[in-house]
């Protein structure tokens, strides 16, 4: 605590600090701890629920599906987000700003509306299938949703701004004079990018990647709507355990595992960057 603070000021600011903390503890941390508690007490005390991570092939299936979709989503969102961020930063004048405007627009648009828009496009009587059939390109509708294709498409669409915006912020801090320097010394544009620019943007790429991956892991709305009950990711599986089979032990165990996985990833991330910077509090 700063030394030059008198007792009265200190009291005012302690109240400002402790009142929200108490509320958070009671209304957020306590409910969260109940989930952790249930995972080792329902139906019986012990790690029986966690054993199922290793024995139940159904659960392992869901976990693999989730990981596969998240890896693919993260890779695609990073690739596309990188191109957008790079172009937005290096295009002169209004073009760069316009690119960024569209990314921000998509960032602000409702997740439910996005998933709905994709349903309109992709379902069997949807816009794309109707158009392809009336043009005579296909005879029967293509299956574009209720599978991994639909889920990944919808998720990449959602995650692009989450990859592009931090990448843009990171690239802004890169000293770009080194690239023309490399070019002046005879490097081709591709060489200059791969050997000079890409390594400098690597920390940004890693942190944007881990963040996108973390957000993807716990995603519910888009996979639930575009997976249509066929391609099930972990969040939806947890919801099914609670709502349909009332299996709190299994549901809270998976929720706990998801939480632990995310904290482990954040710990890894903290090796590369200052977490406070990633979340914008510094």
């Amino acid at each position: 605590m700063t030394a030059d603070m008198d007792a009265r000021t200190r009291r005012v600011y302690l109240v400002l600090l402790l009142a929200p903390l108490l509320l958070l503890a009671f209304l957020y941390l306590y409910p969260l701890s109940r989930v952790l508690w249930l995972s080792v007490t329902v139906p019986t005390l012990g790690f029986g629920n966690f054993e199922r991570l290793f024995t139940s092939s159904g659960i392992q299936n869901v976990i693999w599906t989730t990981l596969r979709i998240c890896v693919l989503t993260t890779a695609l969102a990073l690739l596309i987000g990188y191109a957008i961020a790079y172009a937005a930063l290096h295009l002169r004048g209004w073009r760069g700003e316009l690119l960024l405007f569209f990314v921000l627009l998509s960032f602000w648009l409702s997740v439910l509306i996005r998933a709905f828009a994709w349903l309109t496009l992709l379902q069997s009587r949807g816009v794309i299938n109707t158009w392809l059939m009336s043009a005579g390109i296909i005879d029967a509708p293509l299956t574009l949703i209720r599978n991994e294709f639909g889920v990944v498409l919808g998720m990449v669409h959602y995650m692009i701004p989450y990859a592009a915006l931090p990448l843009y912020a990171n690239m802004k801090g890169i000293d770009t004079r080194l690239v023309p320097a490399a070019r002046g010394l005879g490097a081709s544009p591709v060489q200059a990018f791969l050997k000079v620019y890409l390594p400098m943007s690597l920390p940004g790429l890693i942190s944007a990647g881990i963040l996108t991956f973390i957000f993807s892991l716990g995603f519910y709305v888009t996979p639930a709507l575009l997976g249509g009950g066929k391609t099930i990711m972990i969040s939806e599986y947890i919801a099914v355990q609670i709502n349909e089979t009332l299996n709190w032990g299994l549901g809270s165990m998976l929720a706990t595992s998801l939480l632990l996985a995310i904290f482990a990833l954040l710990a890894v991330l903290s090796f590369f960057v200052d977490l406070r910077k990633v979340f914008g509090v510094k």
Partner: protein
Amino acid sequence: MDLAPSKPFRLTVFGAWLAILFLTLPFVVVFPVSLTPQRYLSLPDGEFSLRHYQTLLQDPSWMLSIRDSLIVATGSTIVAIVLGTMTALACWRISSRASELVRMAMLAPMIVPSIVHALGFYQIWAQLGLLDTYTGLILAHAMKGTPYVVISVSAALANVDLRLEQAARNLGATALQALWKVIIPAARPGMAAGSVFAFALSWDELVVTLFLSSRGVYTLPRKIWDGIQDNINPAIAAVASLLIVLTVVAMVVRLLLARRQARLAAD
């Protein structure tokens, strides 16, 4: 040294515009679909109809869900602003390891997946009798919105000199007066930005709402969700179109305001 744009760069720019097309295409398609004269989702076949917009006005359940969303989003934004601003102010003034820990703890709801805290809320809200009530939903949404307020107020305070508070005190202000008349005004831009985030978050929140409410509090996202589950009816396309227009208008207004502010600051 200025080098002419290279071929790989032009390719990257082309890719970026292609990506923007991918980002916006779904939203563009929603508009014609909302004008279909059919009862099912389809592109209008030469004939347009406003019947689905009419449904929105005539079916009271749509209007009621908008009302519920407004109540919950407004309430939770107010709670989040108060909690988030208090935390950010205290952490700014008392900067110590402990306050840093508190700030990190306040960010937890940003990182924890919705489904995980939805289960927790459901358990405790059931005990407290808060299920399917405005209070219950407002508190849960406020917990999710608070981190964004903490972040944006912290950012606003980052450039405020700590000595400002001390100067006010030396000139005879009490600690509370200094807080109210000097520091809170400095935090105001952050509070405004944070409230936009908290409101948008609550307005769009679905997962927690699915667990905590049923028929008593029926927000717009919940109504859209149920509508998609039952059978996809083009009234949803009409709602979606309106929400997209609203978002675009809000974005453009924000952009123009930021431009004006920048110009005023430059003068």
